[in-house]
């Protein structure tokens, strides 16, 4: 083990924390620029100037933004995410079950998409130029080009409306059996798998093709190694860095980028929660959701970077 590795990983982690701070700052001020006055919206019909003024004061909305930012940041670090403007519930409670739902969907999609995408990417690279490779390439490009809402809507149209095999929307609370579970997750998971695997397939294929053309792969071939040995022992370990990064990028989409999917299938995840929060100007909720997305993204990317550092023998 090289002494530099802990230092490099340490630096990488510090960088992540700094990024998180910058993002929280940006998110806070961006949400504050949303048009409309929270107090006025909350009071609705009863919005007399005095009442609005009183509520603004009670909610600290009359304080300078920087002060509110620091107050909020301090709360986040002590575990107090604040209370929702809209219904006075604690943000932690609001997000809690939604977060579990999102992670469930993300987890199941990962289990389906990653092995599928890696297999397709690697096999396409190995059989480069073959009919199989061309079909995979054309299909992935096709999937990338079609927006996910089209995929989702088409799926709903076919499987829920015409064939009536699957429910059009997901009712998490009505799951009683395994078949219910499968039926509920089938369409969201398949749609998300489409979206995330395309990039993974392309990146994996490119990375493996690159290592397959290296002299050490030719050397392995000239040692009499079988194709699977060449790919698994010589090509893959050396293309791990780019592949893991592609994985992290695609998977981070499952946390923050699923808004459209959750909306179309009416799936109770945090992305949908965030959309609803925007409608009610629920600033603390929006901020927390954004922070969670950013955190998920950062965790994945940091893990990918650390794996890339560890898989580089020059650093080991």
């Amino acid at each position: 083990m090289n002494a530099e590795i802990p230092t490099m990983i340490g630096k990488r982690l510090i960088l992540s924390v700094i990024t998180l701070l910058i993002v929280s700052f940006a998110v806070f001020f961006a949400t504050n620029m949303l048009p409309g006055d929270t107090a006025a919206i909350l009071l609705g019909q009863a919005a007399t100037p005095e009442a609005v003024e009183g509520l603004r004061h009670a909610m600290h909305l009359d304080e300078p933004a920087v002060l509110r930012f620091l107050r909020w940041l301090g709360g986040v670090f002590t575990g107090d995410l604040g209370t929702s403007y809209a219904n006075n519930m604690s943000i932690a409670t609001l997000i809690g079950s939604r977060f579990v739902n999102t992670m469930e969907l993300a987890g199941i999609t990962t289990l389906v998409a990653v092995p599928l995408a890696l297999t397709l990417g690697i096999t396409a690279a190995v059989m480069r130029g073959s009919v199989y490779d061309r079909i995979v390439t054309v299909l992935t490009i096709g999937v990338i080009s079609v927006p996910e809402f089209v995929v989702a809507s088409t799926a709903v149209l076919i499987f829920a409306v015409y064939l009536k095999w699957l429910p059009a929307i997901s009712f998490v609370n009505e799951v009683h059996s395994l078949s219910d579970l499968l039926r509920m997750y089938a369409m969201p998971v398949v749609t998300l798998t489409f979206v995330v695997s395309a990039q993974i397939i392309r990146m994996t294929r490119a990375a493996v093709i690159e290592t397959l053309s290296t002299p050490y792969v030719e050397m392995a071939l000239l040692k009499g190694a079988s194709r699977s040995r060449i790919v698994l022992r010589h090509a893959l370990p050396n293309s791990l860095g780019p592949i893991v990064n592609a994985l992290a990028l695609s998977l981070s989409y499952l946390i923050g980028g699923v808004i459209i999917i959750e909306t179309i299938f009416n799936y109770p995840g945090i992305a949908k929660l965030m959309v609803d929060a925007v409608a009610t100007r629920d600033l603390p909720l929006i901020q927390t959701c954004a922070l969670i997305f950013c955190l998920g993204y950062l965790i994945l990317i940091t893990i990918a970077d650390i794996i890339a550092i560890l898989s580089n023998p020059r650093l080991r």
Partner: protein
Amino acid sequence: MSKIVEIRNLRVEATTDSGRRIEIIKGIDIEIAKGEIVALIGESGSGKTTIALTLMGHTRPGCRISDGSILVDGKDMAKLSERERSAVRGTEVAYVPQSAAAAFNPSQTIMDQVIEVTRIHGLMTPEKARERAVELFRALSLPSPETIGTRYPHQVSGGQLQRLAAAMALIGDPKLVIFDEPTTALDVTTQIDVLRAFKSVMKAGGISGVYVSHDLAVVAQIADRIVVLKGGEVQEKGTTDAILSAPKHAYTRELLAAFEPKETQFAEQPIEKPRPLLEIENVIGGYGPIQPNGLPFIQAVRSVSLSVQKGRNLGIIGESGCGKSTLARCIAGILPANAGNIVFDGKELDHAARRRTRDQLREMQIVFQYADTALNPAKPIDDILGRPLSFYHGLSGKARSARVEELLDMVQLPKSLRYRHPSELSGGQKQRINFARALAANPKLIICDEITSALDTVVAAAIIELLKELQRELDLSYIFISHDLSVVEAICDEIVVMYRGEKVEHLTREDVKAPTHPYSKLLFSSVPKLDPTWLDNLVLEPELVRQYGGA
């Protein structure tokens, strides 16, 4: 004697990017007897590596064996199935690659890769294979044979990797070993050790070999017979002695001629000492963070002083890593020197190129080793040569166009080349363009950094001739950097020998045959000679080798 290899009427086809099929090997016949080492020699593109690889039934992507038979120990490699070929590879025919540094998987230990052949073919238990590997390491005189296998490829030197690659090839007890330019990437002092190790192991095991190389002198040391190739055809074959002493084919003579010391007329030493064109004093340059004393962490050039007289040439010679290229970059100001003075044409130059005047920049040009990377692949030659003309001389339109043609003429290239892109030129042509671009500035001094190293012997010799001719016409001075003594000798009036960042010796033409510094002695005596007995008779002082030897 029975034959181990019989190649009959071998033809190999390549498909170009545009889908056109061209024949790159045009019906050749080669035989190799048991225990014999046959060299395939020729310039790049002559098909020598392609032929060698067909002995393992392998062709590079885009190529295929279109006709003929390749009998290796009675099996026709062209007709075997992929599975049958795999079974032969590593056990009967083994391969030693050109660049071992690239042929080792960076993420596995050396031992794992060396014994992989035994694992793939189930030849012996891993314990036994490791023992055998250590024996081979010892036979190839590798340092610390017991533990070198536990390292990763980047942790050992190039010369050691090349010997480790030989161990990797020999572990399966092959009947035939293919060496693909195995010493081309090595320094001469290292090359000697590697060649010796190969030769003794091959002889001890009575193994047949195919030795692919472009270097006739190296081949002379190791091969029993030589096959000379050009354009995918056999030009001449015969015993090593016969080829060296009585070459029949014109191309063979050309190859040999490139080795002959050139009778060159050097300008008579002027009586009065003229003012030097370039004078550098105690230049220090390097890389890494600047230390409190103002010097870089890694000093690649340590206090070097030298001078170049007007109209004369200075050679800088040394092994890779000796700091010769860094020195060139310091003089040109690309890498600002950290200390010392650079006086050019009587005026002190700033260390950094961007603080030099345009005229100072114009008068000193640098030409890099790899024309491939030095020429912008997206621009036609016209633009590449035209840019310095506009930049330094403000030329445009017809004047610029006329000057581009003149420059092409100077480097002896047809005018029609101006509309082509670098990728449409041969290696030698690209290097000529690279050089013409430096000429475009009308310089007084041109720094040539290994400009012939990536070229074939015959092409390189032609470039050297061109440089000499241009010098006579244009009153140029060159600083000529190379690791190849014969190239430097051919063109330089004075030679500076560098070792580990320091100038160890300054030789004039008269004493180039008799260097006094021990490192120069070792370096000069390590250059292979055409004489086939040279390696066997070469006696290097062990003390010298220990102190300065490769690896």
